[in-house]
Each structure stands twice: as structure tokens, then as C-alpha cells.
């Protein structure tokens, strides 16, 4: 065997484990790359051969179809397919965002109720979870859609609620403040919430009377409610409202909430809440009884024990599976197509795909969107999890 100058047996290059490890990985990557390239080329070739148009040129072509709910400016005659995509995206975000908020609230309440010592409350919560978890969500959506439509009176016999609010099976109509853009409202409310949160945090750190959360609460509330009022006054109150009014076929004016949105929210929230309830219950049960008993011995009240001792520790167990439920809710929102809610899948992989015939492009874009949603949700929740997780020192 050949020897190196130092007298150690020399290993031939091809038997060098380090080199081999690198070589295998390079080969594997190259093979995967080639496979991906071949797949793309194959698809492109076949499309070209079958004379199927490909590319993203359709993005700037006039759409020409109507959409029932648009959060951003859109019109059939002048907007493009690209614009229709954004309409669908914002509609999906709306239902996913609202759904996550309501499902978390409802799910937490039911999770806590399942641990209640009250027999009736505990049984009801268990029954809810068992019933809802075991029925497919699509069926539930169809049920809620028909329930919403059938329960509400028709347009001619619609309810007139106080404050100029109208309700019938075409939707819920509320007065719309004139000269105020919907996005401004969202921005002001978000700013107020942020301001309140900041006060609560900063004041809580200071010494003295503000350390007590009970003392901070009224001030926080004042900020959250007061700031929008101040903003309103600054914009030149008193406001005028555009009241919804009955036309020949429909209510005109005001802010419109479609029954499709309500039914979709009902379905998704009620379904997801059942899962979140179980996640919350598992989290609460993971905190050892000794913790609560010790807090009781210190004289804390029941709500305080839950809020200050149990929930912060339970969060560590709750967050990761809760993230999964948020992702599920977002993905399930694509079932909207069954009940006529114009979400991304309905508009883009439905109408746009069919008109343009460009299935590959449209589906790839849509998949990329859902993937980004999921990754962003995971990112945010992981960051939050890192904060509440047990820090080992």
C-alpha cells in the first residue's frame, strides 16, 4: 500500500469519506435539478405542441366578469385578470382573518368549558366538540348557507333594525359614513388598538399604581375607544351617513355583508373552534394541579389563577397545534366555491382559469399564494412560540 511521507497509509481519493459525502450530494442535487428542468420543459413542449397558450400574458387582459364582493376597486369592463386575482386574495384574507379571530375566541371558551366543574356546561361543550369534529366541513358549509338563507326573510319582508340597519336573505346592510374610506377605518382602529397595547405594556413596567392591571384597564379602554373618536372629530364630525334603502330588487347604499360571507364564517369558525377547544383543553390540563393549588393558597381568585398562572404555562403546549388549526382554517376557506363566496380559488382557479384556459399558470400562482399564507402564519406563530416557550438556562 502506498504511504504518505508521514508513513500513514494514503486513502485513495474515491474512498475518502468526506469527498464522497460531498460528491453524493452534488450528484443528488444535479439529478433533482435535471428532473425539475425536464418536467418544466416537457410541460412547455406539450403545451406548445397542443397549441395551448402559455405564459403570463393574461394577467393584463380585461377580465369582463362580475364579482359579488370586492374589497378593492374592481369593475368588469375595465379591470384585468390580475386585478381579479387581488380581489380574490383580499376576500380570502378577509374570511381567513375574521375566521381565525372568532375561532380562537369560541374555541378557547369551549375548551375552558370542557374543564368546567358544572356538569351541564361540561357535557354541552363535549357534545359540541364531538358533533362538529366528526362532520365534514363542506357539509357544514352547505348546511349553514342554506340555514342562513332559509332563516332570513326575503327582500320584501326584510327586518328593519334600529339605526337604519336592514337584514334580509340578500345580506346585512348597515349605514355607511360618507367620505370615509373603509381602509381608513381599519387603519384608525388598528392604530388605536396599538396605542392601547403600548400604554398597557409601558405603564405596566413602571413602578407605582400602574403596576396593577385593574388600574390600567379603564385607561386602556379609554384610549382604544377614545382615539377613533378623536380621529373622527379631527376629520370634521358630525358625520353624515349613507343609509341603506330598499330599491325595486335590492337594498341600495350602505355597507353590505353578503350571506355567503356570513355562512362561510359560521361554518369555518364553528368547525375550527371544535379543534381549538381540544387544543386549549390539552394545554390547560398540561399545567400541573400543584400550580393552581399553590396560587389558591396564596389567595388568588379563580379568574386570576387562570389568567396569571395557568394560561401562560399552557400557551407553550397550545401554540404549535393552534398554528396548525389556523393553517387548516385558511386552507379550508377555499371550500367557499361551494357556496358562492368569491374567494381566491373561486375567482382565480375557477373563472379566470376557465376563461383563459391556462391551468398550469393559474394553479401554480394559487398554490404559491396558499403556501405563502401558511409560511407567514407559521413564521408569526413560531416567533410568538419562541417568546412564550420555556427558556432553559
Amino acid at each position, binding site marked *: 500500500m502506498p504511504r504518505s511521507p508521514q508513513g500513514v497509509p494514503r486513502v485513495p481519493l474515491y474512498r475518502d*469519506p468526506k469527498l*464522497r*459525502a460531498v460528491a*453524493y450530494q452534488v*450528484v*443528488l442535487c*444535479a*439529478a*433533482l435539478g*435535471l*428532473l425539475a*428542468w*425536464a*418536467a418544466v*420543459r*416537457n410541460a412547455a*413542449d*406539450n*403545451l406548445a*405542441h*397542443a*397549441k*395551448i*397558450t402559455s405564459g403570463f400574458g393574461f394577467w393584463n387582459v380585461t377580465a*369582463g*366578469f*362580475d*364579482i*359579488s364582493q370586492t374589497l378593492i376597486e374592481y369593475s*368588469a*369592463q375595465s379591470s384585468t385578470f390580475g386585478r381579479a386575482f387581488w380581489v380574490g386574495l383580499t376576500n380570502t384574507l378577509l374570511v381567513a382573518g375574521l375566521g381565525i379571530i372568532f375561532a380562537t375566541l369560541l374555541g378557547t371558551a369551549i375548551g375552558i368549558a370542557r374543564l368546567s366543574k358544572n356538569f351541564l356546561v361540561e357535557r354541552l361543550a363535549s357534545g359540541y366538540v364531538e358533533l362538529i369534529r366528526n362532520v365534514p366541513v363542506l357539509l357544514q358549509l352547505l348546511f349553514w348557507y*342554506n340555514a342562513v*338563507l*332559509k332563516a332570513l326573510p*326575503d*327582500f320584501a319582508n326584510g327586518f328593519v333594525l334600529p339605526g337604519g340597519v336592514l337584514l334580509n*336573505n*340578500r345580506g346585512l346592510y348597515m349605514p355607511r359614513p360618507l367620505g370615509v374610506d373603509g381602509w381608513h377605518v381599519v387603519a384608525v382602529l388598528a392604530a388605536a388598538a396599538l396605542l392601547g397595547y403600548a400604554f398597557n405594556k409601558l405603564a405596566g413596567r413602571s413602578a407605582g399604581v400602574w403596576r396593577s392591571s385593574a388600574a390600567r384597564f379603564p385607561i386602556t379602554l379609554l384610549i382604544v375607544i377614545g382615539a377613533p373618536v378623536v380621529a373622527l372629530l379631527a376629520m370634521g364630525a358630525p358625520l353624515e351617513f349613507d343609509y341603506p334603502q330598499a*330599491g*325595486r*330588487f*335590492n337594498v*341600495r347604499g350602505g355597507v353590505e355583508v*353578503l*350571506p*355567503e360571507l356570513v355562512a362561510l364564517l359560521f361554518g369555518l369558525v364553528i368547525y375550527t373552534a371544535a379543534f381549538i377547544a381540544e387544543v386549549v383543553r390539552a394545554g390547560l390540563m398540561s399545567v400541573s394541579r400543584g400550580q393552581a393549588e399553590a396560587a389558591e393558597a396564596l389567595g388568588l381568585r379563580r379568574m386570576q389563577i387562570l389568567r396569571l398562572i395557568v394560561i401562560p404555562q399552557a400557551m407553550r403546549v397550545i401554540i404549535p397545534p393552534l398554528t396548525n388549526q389556523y393553517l387548516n382554517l385558511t386552507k379550508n376557506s377555499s371550500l367557499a*366555491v*361551494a*357556496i*358562492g363566496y*368569491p374567494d381566491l380559488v*373561486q375567482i382565480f382557479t*375557477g*373563472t379566470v*382559469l*376557465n*376563461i*383563459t*384556459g391556462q*391551468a398550469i399558470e393559474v394553479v401554480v400562482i394559487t398554490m404559491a399564494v396558499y403556501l405563502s399564507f401558511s409560511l407567514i402564519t407559521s413564521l408569526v406563530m413560531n416567533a410568538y412560540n419562541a417568546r412564550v416557550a420555556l427558556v432553559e438556562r
Partner: protein
Amino acid sequence: MRRFAHALSAAAATMVMAGFAYAGFAHVDLAHAGTLDTVKQRGSLNCGANGQLPGFGLPDAQGNWTGLDVDLCRAIAAAIFNDASKVKFVALTAKDRFTALQTGDVDVLVRNTTWTLLRDTQLGLNATGVNYYDGQGFIIRKSAKVNSALELNDATICVQQGTTTELNLADYFRANRMRLRSVTFATLDEAVRAYETDRCNAFTTDASGLYAVRLKLAKPDEHVVLPEIISKEPLGPFVRHGDDQWFDLVKWVHFAMLNAEELNVSKANVDEQLKSDNPEIKRMLGTEDNFGERLGLSKDWVYRIVKLVGNYGEVFDRNVGQGSQLKIARGLNALWTKGGVQYAPPIR
């Protein structure tokens, strides 16, 4: 460790080979594969049909399909196999129909599909003709007291997704300066159900579909079809682009049914007509010359179609015409000799 490395290298080598193999096969010519040969080998025709539309394509409780479109598929099967039952029907939604044809899931799409320039050029498909001349209309409750589609300003309209209907609707309201509120559903049944629960004031689809939909409603008498026809909807079969033999075959099966009606050759008298002296009938039924061969079919292809399925008039009558529940008049779909626009080139 070494064993693992070996396994890995084997896996990598396989991947590379698979990659090359895939790249090598990349140029298999899907579009030009002979559809007729494939169908013959398989022993049955895969036909993309509606599945929800009475008169055009609808299976009954026993799974027996009926309809004008369905019978065209049966006629194709009759011409190829001398057996009208050798068809596998695939129910397709408006939204999925083109993909199903493009990917080869079905050999022919006969699903009340409108022939448009875009569909002819962008989708890699070809329309072979028009088996039903249609136009879009509206159905509305009588209680709404609407007499014309022009009164529909601000009305909510239910519509099925993935159709030319969706686009015509927006066009019509825009052209007449009316405000449109549309609610779009994935399938016909869902859209109709929403209309029936009063989610919408009116429902729109092709006029033939409106009559079919009216039958589905709980109280058909409470609904009325408005007189306006707002678009041209030539409905016809589609095939994949690039297989001219198959394109010709599907096209001529429809023409054969029209020619048979024009020459008064029907299911009942076709055996008798075999003895006819009329040269046109002789050419058509294959008692003289052999035109079927030129389509890749047998000499008696039209005889098979008429004997097993019927001529166009018979098929129209039993599915959508006076012999059916729909009772739609022939109108534009009458033969050109009787004031309509159904006109077939001669078999010669």
C-alpha cells in the same frame, strides 16, 4: 456507514437515470396520438358530458344517460363499434371540462359548450360543429312582475361559473347601463338552488337550459323565461387540436345525422332505405361507394348511426323537442330546408 453510502449512491444513480429517461420521453407526441386507434383498442369511447342538464346530459337513477349531447356520443360509438352502448360518460362541470379533454381523460367533449374564438385558439381544442344553436336568457319569478330583461337594473342574478354566460351577463348589463349584482356558483345545481331560495332575483343560462331548469324547480308555473336572448351560443362537440382524423370523424357523425334527417332516413325506415335508388341515400348508407373508409370507419357507418341512435330530428325530438318534457321548438335548429340553420355538407 459505508452501506448507507452505497445505498445513497445507488439512489442517486437511479435518480439521474430517471431524469434522463424523463427528458428523453419528453417529446412523446400526446396530441397526435391517434385517438381513433386508442378508442378502438380500449373498446369504448370516453365522452365528457354534462350530468346535470335535462335534455342534454343527465343520468337517471339507474345510471342510464339521456340527452341530445349524450346521443351524439352514442352515435360516435355506433359508427365505430356498431354498438351504441360502448360509451363511458364522464360528468364534467363547466369549469373542469376543457382540462378533462386536454389531458385525455375524455376523447370528445359534448357538453353544451359554446364555440368561441378563444376556445378554438387558446385551449388547444377544436370545435367540430354546432349540434344546438342556443342563446342566453333569464328566468325570473312571475311575482316580480318583470316583462323584459331590460328591467333588471340592480337585480341579483345567479350564474354558473366557468361559462360564457358569466361574461355575456356582465356585457349585457354594461351595454344597457344597468347595475349588476351577480352571485357565482361552481355547478348548475347550486346556482339553481340559490335562485330557488330567493338568494337571487333571476337566474341566467342558455335558453335551452332555462327550460330544463324550470322543470327542476318545485313550482315551475311560478317562474317565467324572459323574451330577450342576449347572446349567440352555438353549442357543439370539442376534440383535441392536432388529430385531424378524429376531428373529421366527430364532425361527420353530426353531419351524417343531419343528412339522414334531410333525406328522410330514420330509425324506423333505415332498413327499407337500404334498397333505395336515390344516389344520395346510396352513398350515405354505403350501398354505393365506401365513404366510411375515408373516415377510418366501416362502409355502413351511417346505417349504424341511424339504426342504433337515429337521425338528428329524431334525437332532437325525443330529448328536447315535442317528444320530451322540455318541448322546445326546432327554431334555429330546424334543417335549412325548413327555415332553420342546421345545414350539413353532402356526403360525396
